[in-house]
């Protein structure tokens, strides 16, 4: 048969089906194959909202999106080229994400009456038949039937046989994208080593799927996505929350401080607790507290004892921690607070992403209580950023807020993971014991960075008391003395600001050090902004990209960098927060570009916003009101 072969620079495939259809596995297997083939890629799973909805219904749909290519891939893709739907609910839930002219691979047995009803289609409405999909390239395959046929002479139960459906799809797609089956076969053999007939069945169906593409007329085109030019090295795939877990363990190892992790479950932060609770052999303490207040308090107690005290939550839980974080600020103990942000306000949309907790991180406490704030830019970057959070906290005896979000938490990318030896050493030392010295021990004497010593229980001769009341400079005794209070407030701030001397200068991610326009971003918008700037530059626009990891304090050179641009645009997934900090700190007419839809910017979306923003005369919109 004649078939056309096309080359594509990048492709986005979205696997969608019922929670039971194994789409997450299918997606990750394709991901691994693509990775092994040397593609760059990004993935984003989308689970049904917190609780499991009835099979076949729209709320029950689970999807996995993979964007892979021969060029640099920085986002899971706004829209997909290929949409695999195992049932009609999956189509309904995902059609909007398929680009016009895109391909739909539909499992027709998922479009029978029962399934159509479950998906709330009108009686005798069937999208496969009523032409409503005319804008798309629809390929109907009776995957269920074909799977059963291929396993007709197997001993397996119907349930087990149907479980193999997803391998058929995978095989089919491997054919479409010219992939080898071996790594997947290897995986299946390993996974089902206990019961080989299951392995066999899956492998058989996988191959059937591949041959089906080859032999049937239905599929006439194949696509090749060449390997990307990725820096050589050993890679693994990793999600943001997993990278956070590894970063914390690494920081504990490199600092020699046991990790004490006090947390209370909350979406989308819980996986960090789950991940760390498996690392006990690294001496990791995980404490599932009764609430967020106890969680952060236990971490403070552990930090007082000399551990690396970490607590994690998401927006609403962080709101509850404010008072205790203030205690850590005045005690001047190390404390790392992870906020895996989600859409707010209040309970908001727990499974949706947002960047709207930055102001809370900066100011969500009573009184003047300065903390450091850092934010990761990609799933893999969570590792280095949380490591930095720990380093700053331990070396500067200050609480550090780490702002990840749901998009990073569950998204994944290839990671050229480091070797232990390449990791910075975090140097912490305890106040030594001092017996016999008559004079009073002074726990609040500072070094040139304004940092006080870490004086832990068990150390003879330095017994002392700390507390939430204002303390006298040096002695740490309670003091209501007016000038002392002002001095201490300034000192705590100076200590925070001095961190700027111990973090890298800000680099321009892409574009010139100065010019017409700069996009200043933070956190999970990195991939989108980078892509947009890249494309706009190719279109000849004078635009640069600055992406902040360190938000409090800002890098020393940020002000000068910003002064080098006429237009400063700040895209955020919130109603304008970083832009406020920048306008206030540097008195530059930065303007916000804001989407608050519980999901990342689309590339086209942001591109347009930037163009519109630049169309408006600057001066006219200097006021944010």
């Amino acid at each position, binding site marked *: 048969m004649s078939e056309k072969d096309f080359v594509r620079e990048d492709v986005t495939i979205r696997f969608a089906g019922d929670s039971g259809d194994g789409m997450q596995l299918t997606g990750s297997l394709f991901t691994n194959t693509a990775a092994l083939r040397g593609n760059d890629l990004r993935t984003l799973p989308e689970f049904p909202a917190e609780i499991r909805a009835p099979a076949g219904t729209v709320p029950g749909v689970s999807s996995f999106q993979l964007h892979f290519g021969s060029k640099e891939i920085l986002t899971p893709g706004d829209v997909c080229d290929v949409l695999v739907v195992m049932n009609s609910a999956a189509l309904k839930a995902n059609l909007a994400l398929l680009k016009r002219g895109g391909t739909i691979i539909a499992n027709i047995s998922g479009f029978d009456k029962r399934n159509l009803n479950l998906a709330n289609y009108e009686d005798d409405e069937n999208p496969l038949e009523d032409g409503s999909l005319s804008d798309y390239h629809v390929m109907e395959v009776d995957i269920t039937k074909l799977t059963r046929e291929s396993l007709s002479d197997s001993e397996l139960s119907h349930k087990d046989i149907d479980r193999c459906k997803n391998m058929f799809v995978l095989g089919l797609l491997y054919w479409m994208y010219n992939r080898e089956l071996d790594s997947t076969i290897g995986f299946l053999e390993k996974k089902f080593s206990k019961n080989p007939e299951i392995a066999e069945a899956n492998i058989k169906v996988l191959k059937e799927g591949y041959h089906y593409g080859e032999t049937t007329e239905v599929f006439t085109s194949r696509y090749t996505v060449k390997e990307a030019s990725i820096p*050589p090295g050993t890679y693994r795939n990793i999600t943001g929350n997993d990278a956070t877990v590894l970063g914390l363990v690494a920081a504990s190892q490199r600092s020699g401080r046991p990790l004490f992790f006090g947390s209370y479950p909350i979406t989308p932060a819980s996986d960090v607790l789950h991940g760390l609770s498996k690392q006990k052999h690294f*001496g990791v303490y995980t404490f599932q507290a009764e609430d967020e207040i106890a969680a952060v308090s236990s971490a403070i107690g552990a930090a007082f004892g000399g551990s690396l005290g970490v607590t994690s939550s998401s927006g609403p839980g962080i709101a509850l921690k404010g008072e205790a974080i203030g205690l850590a600020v005045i005690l001047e103990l190390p404390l790392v607070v992870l906020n895996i942000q989600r859409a707010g306000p209040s309970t908001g949309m727990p499974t949706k992403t947002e960047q709207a907790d930055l102001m809370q991180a900066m100011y969500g406490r009573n009184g003047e209580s300065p903390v450091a704030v850092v934010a990761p830019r990609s799933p893999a970057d969570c590792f280095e950023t949380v490591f930095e959070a720990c380093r700053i906290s331990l070396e500067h005896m200050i609480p550090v807020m780490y702002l990840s979000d749901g998009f990073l938490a569950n998204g994944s990318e290839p990671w050229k993971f480091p070797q232990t030896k390449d990791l910075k050493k975090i140097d912490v030392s305890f106040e030594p*014991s001092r017996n016999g010295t008559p004079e009073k021990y002074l726990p609040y004497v500072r070094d040139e960075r304004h940092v006080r010593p870490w004086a832990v229980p068990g150390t003879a001769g330095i017994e002392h008391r700390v*507390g939430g009341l204002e303390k006298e400079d040096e002695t740490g005794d309670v003091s209501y003395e007016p000038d002392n209070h002002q001095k201490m407030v300034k000192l705590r701030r100076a200590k925070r600001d001095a961190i700027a001397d111990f973090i890298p200068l800000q680099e321009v991610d892409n574009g010139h050090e100065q010019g017409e326009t700069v996009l200043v971003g933070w956190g999970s918008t990195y991939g989108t902004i980078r892509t947009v700037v890249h494309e706009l530059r190719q279109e000849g626009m004078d635009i640069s990209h600055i992406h902040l990891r360190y938000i409090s304090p800002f890098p020393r050179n940020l002000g000068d960098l910003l002064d080098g641009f006429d237009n400063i645009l700040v895209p955020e997934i919130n109603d304008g927060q970083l832009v406020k900090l920048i306008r206030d700190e540097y008195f530059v007419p930065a303007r916000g570009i804001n989407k608050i839809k519980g999901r990342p910017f689309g590339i086209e979306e942001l591109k347009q916003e930037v163009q519109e923003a630049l169309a408006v005369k600057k001066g006219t919109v200097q006021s944010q009101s």
Partner: protein
Amino acid sequence: MALDIEKQLDKTTNGSSTIPDYTGKDFASDQDVRWCPGCGDYTILKQVQKAMPEIGVRKEDIVFISGIGCAARFPYYMDTFGMHSIHGRAPAIATGLKTSRPELSVWIITGDGDSLSIGANHFVQLLRRNVNVNLLLFNNQIYGLTKGQYSPTAPEGSVTKSTPYGSVDHPFNPLSLSLGADSTFVARAMDRDPRHLQELIQRTNKHRGTSMLEIYQNCIVFNDGAFELFTDKKSRPRETIYLEHGEPLIFGKEKDKGIRLDGLRPEIVSLDGEVSKEDLWIHDEEDQTKAWLLSRFFDSPENEGEARMPRPFGVLYAVDRPCYEEGVNAQIEQALSQKGEPDLDTLLEGPETWVVK
């Protein structure tokens, strides 16, 4: 890894591992004590300082953690490590510290508002987890530091700054609440009986697990005389009963009254020969049902009538149950022995990798 801190601490300067022979004074810090003259907190402080040399722990290995309140100022006056933290959270802070540093002797100092109002959640969770710390609950049935609002232990009808018409809340019975939270050690003492208080502080320290010692403490300024019935020489013999493990329940000026159990119903009997000590309720610290019954000896002082039960002082309940921090550290040791020395590189590498050339 918990111990690894220990290792890092340069203990050598301590010389030999024997404990210096301290006196109470060694535990007084350089801060002047700032409670109202006549406050019950003074005696408690004195008894705790007096108790420290007995417990056989080095100063530097002792930590006092408090929340907020008059009582909570306590750590400032102890020459040990200490934290005057935030309102109600001491149990959570102590849990983090004790879990990660099990070798330390950790004491929680709290008031009735601190532990039974804002901190009640952490309080009951601590008891259920049975973290091996000592909790001294200074109960003065009032918010002292904020100048006299009623507390969750204040009797109904209390007229205070915030309840000019009298409080309508039914108060907590702190010992019943503790038993309900599956506490493993429940005891009561009072500021006005220092000898007995001293004894109970020692018991509190000896118990493995969370030791909950309620101490009736007189707030001379905002709630003076709240416990007079139990502290006043005249009424005390009739109104209090001191518990001794294995001993019959006897009280009264002439030790002429006893308590007997008629089925589930405790009753007061006079030991006029009719009834002999053998017939009396024998105190058994390990009997939870009896402890519950004793915790219900809680009639409000007003309630007259001879049937009124005296208020029990001493250890109502003390049983052994695994401690939270032991379990946690055991799992860490176990994981270590199972998985062997952790290798960060293996962890970073994860289950599946590929090489790009």
